[in-house]
């Protein structure tokens, strides 16, 4: 019985492997968008900055299907079971835990006032804000801002590079993806010693973070799927504009290092 099955399964495996290889080759061949020759269309193509569009669209479609059966129901259940104030608390805790990474990025962006804001936010919210559940610091004059590795690289003058739609991460670019890896490096939790349950905590936080983030965009993503003629392109445009706005806000933050109360 085993002897008969063995060669057959091996054969099946090679066939599957061959099919997979063929699919990969097809993906590679179809992976690049063809450059148009018409000047107006070419200008549009360059503005789109998405030369890997066919491949990106495949990953987008797969991600959407996987999401519909996994993450989306979990996020929906989370929204159904947990009331909004508690969800805001969870999101605040996660954002507080990411403060060290935000701080390092503020520093590398050469934005001392932003770094000061982040430092004070971490201090206030970790204590008065009960381990980060309440964002007290925002009311005390230290508003939240974004900082990540992608923005730091932008501050250093790196262009974003072409649009990428990555599995698990979603809309991205070479710059943002590199920045993402930097952020993992900036996070103190990356360096926790093994064997204290901290690794588990780290993964749990990561999981909760994914669900919390997905829950926060449930309505918006549904709305895009419903109203956009080409949701992929709409998400690409939203991602780009949002990223650029964050970078612009960071660049235009020219607040002096000496706080107001000191100079008065």
């Amino acid at each position, binding site marked *: 019985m085993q002897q008969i099955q063995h060669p057959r399964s091996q054969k099946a495996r090679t066939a599957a492997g061959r099919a997979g290889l063929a699919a990969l080759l097809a993906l590679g061949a179809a992976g690049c968008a063809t450059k148009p020759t018409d000047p107006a269309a070419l200008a*549009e193509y360059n503005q*789109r900055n998405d030369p890997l569009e066919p491949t990106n669209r495949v990953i987008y479609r797969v991600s959407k299907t996987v999401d519909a059966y996994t993450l989306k129901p979990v996020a929906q259940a989370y929204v159904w079971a947990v009331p*909004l104030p508690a969800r805001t608390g969870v999101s605040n805790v996660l954002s507080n835990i990411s403060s060290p990474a935000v701080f390092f990025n503020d520093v590398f962006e050469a934005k001392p006032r932003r770094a000061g804001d982040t430092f004070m936010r971490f201090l206030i919210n970790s204590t008065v804000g009960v381990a980060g559940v309440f964002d007290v610091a925002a009311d005390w004059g230290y508003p939240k801002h974004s900082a990540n590795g992608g923005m730091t690289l932008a501050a250093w003058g790196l262009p974003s590079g072409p649009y990428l739609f990555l599995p698990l991460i979603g809309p991205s670019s070479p710059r943002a993806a590199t920045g993402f890896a930097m952020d993992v490096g900036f996070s103190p939790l990356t360096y926790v010693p093994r064997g204290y349950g901290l690794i588990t905590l780290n993964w749990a936080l990561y999981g909760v973070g994914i669900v919390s983030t997905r829950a926060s965009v449930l309505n918006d993503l549904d709305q895009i799927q419903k*109203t956009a*003629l*080409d949701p992929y392109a709409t998400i690409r*445009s939203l991602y780009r*504009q949002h990223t650029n706005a964050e970078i612009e*806000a960071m660049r235009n933050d020219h607040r002096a290092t000496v706080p107001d109360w000191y100079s008065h």
Partner: protein
Amino acid sequence: MPKISSLSSARRLPFVLALGLATAVTAPMTPGLISAAHAQSNAGDAAFVQSLAQRMIAVVNGPGSAAEKKAQIQPLLDQDVDVDAIARFCLGRFWRTATPEQQAQYTALFHQVLTNSIDDKLGEYRGVGITVGQATQQDGKTYVATVISRPNQPTANVQWVISHATGQPRIVDVVAEGVSLSLTQRSDYASFLAHNGNDVGRLIAALKRQVSRE
């Protein structure tokens, strides 16, 4: 090729001279004039946003069914939003290649799409509040900064873009947290057209389907 470049450089000289002259003559008097005009239109446009926002909030937070609110919002959209201009912008380069009938059909559909998407959101904005901030000029348009607050939601920075192209102040775009609604819509249509043979007729058909789904 060299012929063209020499021609253009020969032409450029008088042009530069004329430009220099024009600025030399007008420069002493323009700064004051321009800034005074800007200040006036800035203040006027900020007041325009304030008044429109108040009227919209009165409808959104007021009593009445969803259908009644829809009916109350419609005149505000017709009067204070330059929907035709937004529609033209969103079609991009395809506006010029579209036939007059297609342009008319598309514009009518665009009105419906915009109205539907605003009506859909009316319910979500219950209890909304708005603070009008500074107005700035950019590319001949006024950007009025506002902060929108909703109960149990983080505040959102929203800019209202005002144009005077029709002779009166009208909204031509809304930029929410750095995201321009018209630019997003334009890239949606551009991508749809790129994948549908640049055929405006197919875009119109898709918009018809979208409107009938509502």
